[in-house]
Each structure stands twice: as structure tokens, then as C-alpha cells.
């Protein structure tokens, strides 16, 4: 590479300069408390919030029950609902009262037993009314499914009872016909708790945020203050400047990652089915990707205001919304899925979920791993290019 006669000396100069610069960056990092706040306090805070606060599981939905018909049959039908841990039933006297409770968001649904329920039920026309609060569609759907399941259960039991009493017994004896029963098994998350699948998302979010926020301003501020141009008159090369910016923040980012891993294992009990070293290796790669995003933003904009807005726009919401962390990319229109798949966060999330919950599935590891390698290389090379062009 080097055409100068002292090629060997220049390569040892590289290490000396890199060491000096890195030491300076480390000092600068440690001097500013905000670096450690974002590198360590933010992950800790998010871990606690996620682990203990954020849940997609619906428990104890408040349902106002209006018993306009309080016959033993009606009570029997609702019995299953009352036992369920998913519901907190609240008996109210009138539909009017229930409606005002729901308007005030005091209950999530109203279940109404009409006054003619017993008579219509014995005529085979029984109707129950469920009114859901659409202000939270996800919860409403879950409540609907639970109520439906509870009533279907009652119908089954009741059919058998009727059959036993002989009303349908003749029919059943003439043409016996069985029932299809569904047996669901949840692989990789047997209890199907949302924590197990939110924690990998949390790791992705933290890695994305710390990476992008740590480095998004470090080059831009030197451009704004003119200190970068001052550096250019020294023998230091752009690659060395960028590497020196990368190394300390990489260290801080990996401390955050270690905290996530420990919390996932010991606080939330997420299993590590796959191998730990693969998880660490892919996280090292992703840390480089996300620091690369920050560095590229920083070196390309050379303006702290724009750089920080860009870091916010590219870091937080896309990683949460488009990576599949909350919403499944299978369910969205193809164009939007394509954008989601173009994000490195999507592939890292896929890797973390697979390695933690499913194991070393090599085709996935290789596919996502090579995508991350490509992203890291392209982003860091682009940051390097942008920095070089401006020296000339």
C-alpha cells in the first residue's frame, strides 16, 4: 500500500497514533457523565421497565356484567367467566350504569344477559350481548376471544348433558360422530409469555440506541468546533480518527450488552438454548453496525442539530416499529415488509430470538450474520469515505 520508503515505520506509527487518540477519546468519554448515562444508566432503566412494566398479556380485564335475567341458567352460563383469571367481573344493576362506566374507561367491556335469556335459550335462540371498548383494540380482541371460548365450553358441556338426557341421544346413537380437538404446542416459548419475546427485542433496542446515540455527535461536534480540521494538519489519518472514536464507545456499548445478557438470564429467566459465543459474536457485529450508523450520520452531516435529529429518527422508532419487535412483519403490506427487512435491526432481532429461544439454527445464523457483516463493512467504509473527501 504505502509507496513511501519508510513503510514499516509508518505502520508502527499507525499503532502509536491510534493508541494516543484512543486514550484521548477515552478520557473525553469518562469526563462527560452523559456518555456513561446513556451507555449504562439507560440500559439499566430500560431493562427494569421492560422486565417489570411492559407486558402484552391481558390479565384481569374489567367486565361489567348486566344480569337482566338472573335465573340459575344464566348464572350457570356465566360461571366459567367468573372463574377465569383473565376477568374481573363487576356486577352492575342496569345497562345505563354499565354504559357510563365504560364511557369513563372504568371497564373494558360489558356483558349483557337480556331479560328473556332463559326462555330464548330453551327455545334454542339464546343470545348474550358483548360490548367492547374499542379504545384499545388489542385488549378488546383478547376479551372477545376469551368470552367466546368460555361460552363454547359451556355449550359443549351442555350438549353432552342434553345428549345424556335423551333429547339428542337417539340421534347420537344412530350416527355417532366424534369431535375434532385442537392440541396446540408453543415451541420455543412454552408458557407463551410476552417477556420471553420482548427481552430479545429489548436487547436490540438497547444496542441500537446506545450505538447510535453514543457516536452520532462525536464527529459532528468536532467539525462544528473546528477541532477536526486541526487534527487534519497532524500526521493522523482519517481511519485512525474514526477507529479512535469507535473503540471507546464500542467498549461502553458492550458493557450495556453484558448487562442485558445478565438481566435476561438471571432476572427474567430467558433460556439460552443456543451457544453463548454465537450470541456474543453477533452482538459484536451489531454493535459495530449501530456505531457505524452513528458515525456515518455524524461524519456526513457535520452539524450537531441535524445529526441528533437523524439519530433519533433512524434509531428509536424504526428499531421498535419496523424490526418485528412489536409487530409481526408477516402481517404487513409487502412494501412495508421490504423496508423492515432492509433494517439491520430486523436481522439482529431474528438472530437473538433464534439463538436464545430456538438454538443454533445454522442457516439462519449464517444468513443474518452475513447480512450484519455486510452492513458493518458498508457503514464503516462509508463513514471513512465521507471523512476523507473533506480533507482534500
Amino acid at each position: 500500500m504505502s509507496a513511501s520508503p519508510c513503510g514499516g515505520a509508518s505502520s508502527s506509527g499507525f499503532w502509536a497514533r491510534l493508541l494516543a487518540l484512543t486514550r484521548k477519546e477515552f478520557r473525553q468519554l469518562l469526563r462527560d457523565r452523559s456518555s456513561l448515562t446513556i451507555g449504562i444508566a439507560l440500559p439499566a432503566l430500560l431493562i427494569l421497565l421492560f422486565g417489570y412494566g411492559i407486558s402484552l398479556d391481558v390479565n384481569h380485564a374489567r367486565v361489567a356484567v348486566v344480569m337482566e335475567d338472573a335465573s340459575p341458567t344464566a348464572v350457570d352460563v356465566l360461571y366459567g367467566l367468573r372463574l377465569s383469571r383473565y376477568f374481573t367481573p363487576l356486577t352492575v344493576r342496569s345497562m345505563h350504569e354499565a354504559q357510563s362506566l365504560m364511557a369513563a374507561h372504568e371497564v373494558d367491556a360489558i356483558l349483557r344477559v337480556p331479560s328473556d335469556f332463559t326462555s330464548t335459550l330453551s327455545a334454542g335462540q339464546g343470545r348474550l350481548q358483548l360490548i367492547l371498548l374499542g379504545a384499545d383494540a388489542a385488549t378488546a380482541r383478547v376479551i372477545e376471544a376469551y368470552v367466546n371460548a368460555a361460552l363454547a365450553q359451556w355449550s359443549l358441556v351442555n350438549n353432552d348433558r342434553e345428549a345424556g338426557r335423551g333429547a339428542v341421544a337417539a340421534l347420537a346413537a344412530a350416527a355417532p360422530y366424534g369431535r375434532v380437538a385442537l392440541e396446540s404446542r408453543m415451541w420455543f416459548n412454552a408458557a407463551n409469555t410476552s417477556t420471553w419475546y420482548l427481552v430479545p427485542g429489548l436487547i436490540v433496542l438497547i444496542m441500537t440506541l446506545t450505538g447510535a446515540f453514543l457516536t452520532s455527535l462525536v464527529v459532528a461536534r468536532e467539525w462544528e468546533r473546528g477541532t477536526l480540521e486541526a487534527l487534519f494538519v497532524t500526521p493522523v489519518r482519517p481511519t485512525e480518527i474514526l477507529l479512535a472514536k469507535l473503540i471507546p464507545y464500542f467498549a461502553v456499548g458492550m458493557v450495556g450488552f453484558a448487562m442485558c445478557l445478565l438481566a435476561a438470564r438471571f432476572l427474567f429467566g430467558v433460556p439460552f438454548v443456543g451457544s453463548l459465543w454465537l450470541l456474543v459474536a453477533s452482538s459484536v457485529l451489531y454493535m459495530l453496525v449501530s456505531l457505524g450508523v452513528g458515525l456515518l450520520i455524524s461524519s456526513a452531516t457535520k452539524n450537531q442539530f441535524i445529526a441528533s435529529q437523524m439519530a433519533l429518527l433512524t434509531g428509536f422508532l424504526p428499531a421498535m416499529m419496523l424490526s418485528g419487535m412489536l409487530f409481526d412483519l408477516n402481517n404487513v403490506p409487502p412494501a412495508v415488509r421490504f423496508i423492515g427487512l432492509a433494517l439491520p435491526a430486523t436481522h439482529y432481532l431474528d438472530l437473538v430470538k433464534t439463538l436464545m429461544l430456538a438454538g443454533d439454527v445454522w442457516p439462519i445464523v449464517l444468513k443474518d450474520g452475513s447480512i450484519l457483516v455486510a452492513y458493518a463493512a458498508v457503514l464503516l467504509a462509508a463513514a471513512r469515505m465521507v471523512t476523507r473527501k473533506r480533507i482534500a
Partner: protein
Amino acid sequence: MIDLLLRLRALIAKELLSVLKDPSSRVILFLPVLLQSLLFGYVATYDLANVPYAVLDLSRSPTSAALLAKLDGTGFFRRVATLQSQAEIAPVIDLQQALMVVQIGPRFEQQLLAGETAPVQLILDARNSTTAATAAATLGSVVDTFNQDQWLQRGGAAPALALQTRAWFNPNLETRWNFMPALIATLSMLQTLLLCALSVAREREQGTFDQLLVTPLSPMEIMAGKAIPPMLIGLVQSTLVLLVTRFWFQIPMAGSLATLYIGLAAFMLAGVGIGLSISALSATMQQAERYTFVILLPMMMLSGLSTPVAAMPRALQIATLVNPVRFGIDLVRRVYLEGVGLATVWPDIVPMLLVAAVTLPTAAWLFRHRLT
């Protein structure tokens, strides 16, 4: 009084100019909001569509074919593979080619004809637990309908019990209807908070803040001059998301614009107060940026944007009481979807004004007292 207004107007004009004179700042303040509201509107759905699944039908009978036809008939599932043996199940799931495998045993039809219970196994990839649970529930209702039809075909009585469901404010229970109104508040809050946080920090870093302090402007006036421009920018951003919600996604708006904007103004005021306090505390833009993120993320997590506040433990629900985003989202959702007026949403507005009443004077005080 006129003097004061003139001074304020000058400061506001200067603030707006310093943000908007740069073309790339203009682009970054308005274009991403539009793009994000469009993208997130499409992505925010828990409804199943196109779920890939595989079948292992060992019975190969007309009855099993009828059951599978019912499954395909829902339109939610897409059959990607027909398996021949149980050994093929694990690879299909592991490699995420299919989200679920429906396995029908060899004696499926005989069991049914003999009046026995015929099990159908469903294996789901619960790496995404939400989709897995929804898919399992959907398949459960497919099986219920199938059983019902068989029962009716054999002369059984129609079910005696039926559930009539209706939903208030969101008849088809679409996630997007809840999500977009929340974005009207959230998207603008993100950038506005950062804008505020950077404004004083930038002047500090460049040394112009000291000059501002020696002008005839009082700290309260500086604070007002710094607070109003970001509020205006935030309201414009909210308006953009509102337009996308109303006219692109065609979500009907039940409430009045006046109520919505009064609420949004209170919301922005609280956000601006928090932003300026961060700004007054920070010595550099980098610090301001990082402290903003440290505050912003918990505010978003505890807002009810992506997970309901009611599903949080009690301690955290109490913590949300100082979070303006929680009240902002609640307010916009209720005004937009439920059409309620100020008489109903004042409990949302008061906490936001309280946050503003604490943070804005704090920021004004810090302007002078942080001088080192």
C-alpha cells in the same frame, strides 16, 4: 406591555429563523414525520395476514381435506409446504419457513366416524408469541366451526347460545385506529423535545447565550421566546400526522378540532418545559441530546403507545402520572375516536399543565443559575 410583545416577537422570529433557515433542518423537521406516520400506520397491526403454514396430513381423507379447506378459507393463512413425515416438522419451523404446522393423525376420519375425539396437533413458532397466540385462537375457532357444521349436517340442533359482539369507537377493532391517534401526539413530541433541548445548549456551546442574558430580556421572556417556536413546530408536525390519519388512512374523527388543539397545546407546553429544563442543565449539545434520550425512552415506554397502561404493575402506573405522553395519547385518542369534549378530558389536561408549571419556571431559573 407592547414593549414586551415586541421583544418577544423579535426573539421568536430569531428562534424560528435559526431553526428553519437551513434547508436540511426544514426537511428533517417535516418530511420524516410524514413518512413515519405512513409507515407505522401500515405496520401497526396485530391482525393476521398471510401467515405461512405447513400441513402434515397423515389421514389423507376427505374429512381432513374439508377441515384444511376451512382453514384456507379464512384468508389469514398461506400454505407453504405439504410435509410427508414428522421428521420434516422441526426444520420447517426452525428455519421460519412456516409459522405453524398442522398435523392430522392417520386415524383422523376413523376416529370421527367411531364417535371418538380426533386430535389435531398444532405446532407454533412462539418466537413471536403474539402472532402465535392469535394464530392458535383463530385455528381454534376454525375447528369449532368445523365441529358445528358436522353436528348440523348430522341433524343436530343449532347452538342454543350465541354471542353478539359490538365494539364502541372502533367497530372492526383495528389496531391502526388506536395507533394513529396516539402517533399524533407521540411523533411530534419526539422531535420537539429534542429541538428544545438543543436550543439553549447550542447557544451555550457557541457562547451566544451569555449575550442573550445581557439583553433587556428577562429570564421569563427568554424562556417564552425559546418555548413558543418549538411549540409551533410541534403543532405543525401534529397537524401533518392528523392529516395522514384522517385522509390517507380515512379514520373518522369524532371529536372537535378545537378540543384537540387545546389538548395538543397543553401537551406541547409540557414537552417544551421538559426540553428546556434539559437544555438549561446541559453544557453541550451532546449532553443535551443524550439526556433527552434518557428521559424520552421511559416516557415512551410508559405512555401506553405500544402496551396498555392497565397491563403495567401498580408502581409503574403511578410513575406514569408524571408522564405527559401518557396523558397526551389518552387525550388525543379520546377526542379523536370517542368525540368527547373538554368536560371529559380535563383530567388529562391538568397533569400536563402541572408538568409545564413546574418545568418552565425551573428552566428559566436555570438559565441564569447554571452559569459557571
